[in-house]
C-alpha cells in the first residue's frame, strides 16, 4: 500500500516535473546508503514526532515500518 503510494507520488512528480530533486533526494537519503542499525536511527518510538509534509511522511513511515517490521495503522497517521 505504502509502496504503491510512493510509486504513484514518484510517477506524479515525474509527469509534472515538480519537486523532483527533493523527492529524488528523499528516495535516497531516507531509505538507502549505509544502514548500520535500526537502533541507531532516531528512536522508533518517536515516529509520531516525524512529520513535515505528506511526501516526507510517506517515505519516513514506509522506511520506519520496514525497520520496525510491523505495519502502521495508516500512512496518513497524524502526529500527536
Amino acid at each position, binding site marked *: 500500500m505504502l509502496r504503491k503510494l510512493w*510509486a504513484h507520488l*514518484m510517477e506524479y512528480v515525474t509527469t509534472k516535473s515538480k519537486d523532483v530533486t*527533493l523527492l*529524488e533526494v528523499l528516495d*535516497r*537519503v531516507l531509505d538507502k546508503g*549505509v544502514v548500520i542499525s535500526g537502533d541507531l*536511527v532516531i528512536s522508533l518510538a518517536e515516529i509520531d514526532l516525524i512529520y513535515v509534509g505528506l511526501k516526507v511522511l510517506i517515505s519516513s513511515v514506509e522506511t520506519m515500518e520496514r525497520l520496525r517490521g510491523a505495519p502502521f495503522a495508516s500512512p496518513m497517521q497524524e502526529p500527536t
Partner: protein
Amino acid sequence: MRIYTYGIIDSNANIVEPISGLEGACVYNLPYRNIGAVASKLINQIKEINRDDVLKHEEVVERLMENFTVLPVRFFTTFNQEEEVLVMLKEYYQDFKENLRKLRNKVEFGIRVIWPSETIKNRIVEACKKFNADVTIPDNSPGKSFAKEKFENYKIDKEFAEEADRCIAFLDDFFSRFSAEKKLEKLKSDNLLLNAYYLVEKEKQGDFKEAFERAKNTPGDLKYLFSGPWPPYNFINLNKKPYCFKDFEGIDMLKKEMSNRDLSDKESI
C-alpha cells in the same frame, strides 16, 4: 549531545576544506585504520525530518564526493559518543573496504520511465477481442464464460507484463553499455514502467548521458526523468548484519586496540 554521521570515506585524514553540517556544526573525520566516518556534533535532539536537514545531509555527502570515495550513511544515523562510531567502523571495516573499492570513481544515475499504461492495456484488450471474435464457444454456460473471462484477464496482464519487459530490455540496452552495475525495478505502478539505478564510472558519465539522450529521442509515448550524478546510495552491500549497541564491551576492546595501533595506518584500500 550526539554524533551525527554522513558518510564513510576512503581516508583517515582530516577534512581540510571546512564543511558545515546539521545545525551549522563543523564536519570532521573520525579515522579508523585507513578509512573514516565523517560526522558532526549534534546539540539538539532531532524531532522531525525537515527539508533543510535532508538537503544538508545530501549536500555534505556530495561535498565529500568531490574529494573522496563515499559510502553515504542513511539520514538520522546518530551515535551517543565518538567511541561508538569507532566500534561501528571496526565492526564493518571489511564491508566498508570492499564497498569503497567497488565504488571508487563511480557515481549513480537514476532513470524513471513513465508509459501510457491505459493506452497499452486498451490496445491489448482490442487485440484479444479481435482474436476471440474468431473463436466460438459451443457450450456457452456461465461456468465456461467465467473461466473464459478469467483466462482473458490473465492473458491481458501477461501480455502487459511482457510488453513492459520488451520495452525495458530496449531501454536498458542503451544504458547498460556504459554502466558497471544496475538495479531495475519494473512496473512499481502501472504507469511507472521503469525505475532504474545505474552505477557509472566517472569518466563514462558523458557517454551515459548521451545514451540517455538517444533513448529519450526515440519516437514513442514514453516520458523520462533523469537524475544524477548521485553518491552511490543504491549500490552499497553490507554483508554484516546491523550492529546494535546493547552493551559497551566493544568500546573497551576498541580503546585497547586503538592504543596499540598507529592510526596513521597507510594500508591501501
